[in-house]
């Protein structure tokens, strides 16, 4: 018999404890943990991707929307003509030719003597 004071394991009590608390179905349990670990690994990868995906998708959607709006403005004939007309109307030569309220004479003289 092993003394309770003994610092070595009590063989008889240990054997009885192992028998009494023998975990059943060892192989099934190991397989269960293996499946859980693999599922956890997959979940982790998808979590990372999802974390990237949410702001990434939002930014990409914003950019795509802005690009689409800009392209639709530029590519449509009406939009192009309107943009061009705005640019022409606001130019100095145009104002001179149309004799606008800006004082065409002063502008022409200023252009002629400007560099002297």
């Amino acid at each position: 018999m092993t003394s309770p004071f003994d610092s070595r394991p009590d063989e008889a009590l240990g054997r009885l404890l192992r028998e009494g608390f023998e975990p059943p179905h060892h192989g099934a349990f190991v397989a269960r943990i293996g499946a859980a670990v693999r599922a956890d690994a997959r979940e982790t990868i998808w979590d990372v991707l999802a974390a990237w995906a949410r702001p990434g998708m939002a930014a990409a959607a914003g950019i795509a929307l802005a690009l689409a709006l800009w392209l639709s403005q530029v590519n449509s004939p009406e939009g192009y003509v309107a943009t061009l007309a705005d640019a022409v109307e606001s130019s100095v030569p145009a104002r001179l030719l149309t004799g606008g309220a800006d004082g065409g004479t002063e502008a022409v003289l200023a252009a002629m003597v400007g560099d002297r």
Partner: protein
Amino acid sequence: MRNLDVTDAELAARAAGGDDTAFGVLVDRHAPAVRRAARVLLGNEHDADDAAQDGFLAAWRAIDRFDGNRPFRPWLMRIVLNAARDLRRRATVRQAEPLSPVEASTRPGPDRETDRSILRRKLAEAMATLPERQRLAVTMFDADGYAHAEIAEVLGIPEGTVRSDVFHGRRALRGQLGPMFEEMQ
């Protein structure tokens, strides 16, 4: 890979690199002890396995933080017992079953196997009367061969306290098992 040739530290290092097969070897190696300890703590086989699974998953997620210069099994056991305590705290544990994994035969007579079954049942009843720390200390020391220092690390208590727990636990168990246990040896 011949599993017996590979140390826990080597397997843990491989697992930290994402090798789930290496982690599987660790599970295979340590599952009996950690499931037994969880069972002794919770008193219920199903909860014990749930806690062991939670603990193994927590260990898998934290394996890159494991210090390979330290022993693996106290690190793992501590994680599993924490998972078991968490499970108990969440109050989702099932009603504790009487700790009698092997049913005693009802056949009368001096049959040795029947005596052993009775003895196991008495052991389960005796274990249920011990304080939790003594139950764990005796189980880890006598059944699973943990050193006093390892148990001290797992339970977060001084080594001398572990020795005392093992001593008192053994004495109580032997006292409750009675002469039948001595005769069986």
